[in-house]
């Protein structure tokens, strides 16, 4: 009995395995397999590999707590239907127009300090520590559009903190570029501040020494990375990720709403935490 050449059949075996051949082709392949042990062995090997891969992949244990985290996050409601969607859009538009008008009003009527005080009141004291430096220094101050020379950044960071610079530069997402790094003082408190831009957003990494009783302990962390608890907060358009060491508080604050703020901090936290602990010892 002669059937089609092995070459033509072999090219179709993958698709036959998946049941994706048209009925007449499937029948032709079946006929060939019935009379050609070599192709039948190849087909069996493909099926064995598929089954082994399926069971190996499915046997991996997954962390069941992910479901709880996802359920917790989905408590923020979506638009339930297109009518509600439209209503939500309309409501949002009205709110935005209103907020926009109020924002302009406040910007005209009040100093940056007034604006900062207004938003800062809405966050807990521990979040305010980082947010106020970002608002003062990156939002109302100015972050250069061209990066400062590295030598200048190193000098302004000072001997104690200059080693943080390469750690951050190595781990910042490619879209971002560190524009300035310096020490600054806001409200009598000293900060180490690195500010980066990605063309649209500004992100600040802000580090300060802990005051008495200052800690994130008691707040539920958003994620753990390498044993470090990372906390999250948001106010107005600012997204805040933070962690602490024994002697320092570190914040990453940006207006990047794509959700990468937390991820960026998670990338920094292990090395940054280690560097800060070295300073503390």
């Amino acid at each position: 009995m002669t059937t089609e050449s092995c070459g033509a059949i072999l090219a179709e075996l993958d698709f036959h395995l998946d049941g994706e051949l048209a009925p007449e082709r499937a029948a032709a392949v079946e006929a060939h397999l019935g009379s050609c042990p070599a192709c039948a062995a190849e087909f069996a090997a493909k099926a064995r590999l598929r089954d082994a891969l399926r069971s190996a992949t499915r046997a991996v244990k997954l962390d069941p707590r992910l479901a709880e985290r996802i359920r917790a996050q989905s408590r923020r409601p979506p638009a339930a239907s297109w009518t509600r969607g439209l209503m939500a859009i309309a409501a949002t538009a009205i709110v935005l127009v209103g907020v926009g008008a109020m924002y302009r009003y406040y910007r005209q009527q009040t100093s940056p300090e007034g604006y900062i005080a207004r938003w800062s009141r809405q966050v807990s004291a521990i979040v305010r520590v980082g947010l106020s430096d970002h608002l003062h220094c990156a939002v109302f101050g100015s972050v250069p559009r061209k990066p400062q020379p590295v030598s200048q950044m190193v000098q302004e960071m000072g001997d104690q903190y200059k080693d943080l610079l390469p750690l951050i530069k190595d781990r910042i997402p490619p879209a971002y570029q560190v524009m300035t790094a310096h020490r600054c003082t806001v409200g009598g408190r000293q900060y180490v501040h690195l500010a980066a831009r990605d063309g649209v957003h500004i992100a600040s990494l802000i580090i300060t020494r802990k005051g008495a009783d200052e800690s994130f302990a008691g707040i539920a962390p958003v994620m753990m990375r390498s044993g470090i608890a990372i906390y999250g907060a948001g106010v107005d358009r600012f997204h805040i990720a933070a962690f602490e060491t024994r002697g320092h508080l570190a914040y990453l604050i940006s207006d990047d709403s794509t959700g990468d703020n937390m991820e960026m901090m998670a990338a920094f936290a292990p090395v940054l935490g280690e560097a800060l602990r070295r300073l503390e010892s």
Partner: protein
Amino acid sequence: MRGTLVWLPLSDSNSTARERFDAEAMPHLGDLHRTALRLLGDAARAEDVVQEAYLQGWKSFHRFQPGTNCRAWMFQILFHCVNHYRRKWFRFAQLKEHEEHLQENLPAPPLMPERLTDSDILAALDRVPVDYRSVVLLVDVEEFAYKEVAEILAIPIGTVMSRLSRGRKMLREQLADVARSYGLRAEKGQAR
């Protein structure tokens, strides 16, 4: 996931939407999770990306058409999130569309060795380039039809087929390497 501490809560009157989302999307969590784990190779990253996919899914759940395939829809969102994540963090080179050319020149793959552990198989899979690995996972493990895979990955169905054949061959080549490293002999005999 982000900004959960002090965002002012919005009204919570959408319990029915949440129940529907829970009923339709949550059962696929395990499938998405293991796929993300095989694509990203790191448990923490995989969890973050899956969580992001569910957040995106929840936010756009009003666009999901009831009665259509929620599992495929969630996978589509997952791959969107994975690609976004990889672009942002790895500057990875996208696969160029010269696969058909490559496929012509491939030698016949070695037959699959008999004795391999699950971790051998996963290690071999992890070495297959991610664009091929994606198709192999979606077809072999998640059992999607080619047409669904084409939609999930936003690629033509012909590309699904060529990446699948090539991906499976690469997997076998990797497994043969593993077997050789154990001093096993890959089975003799070439199917031709």
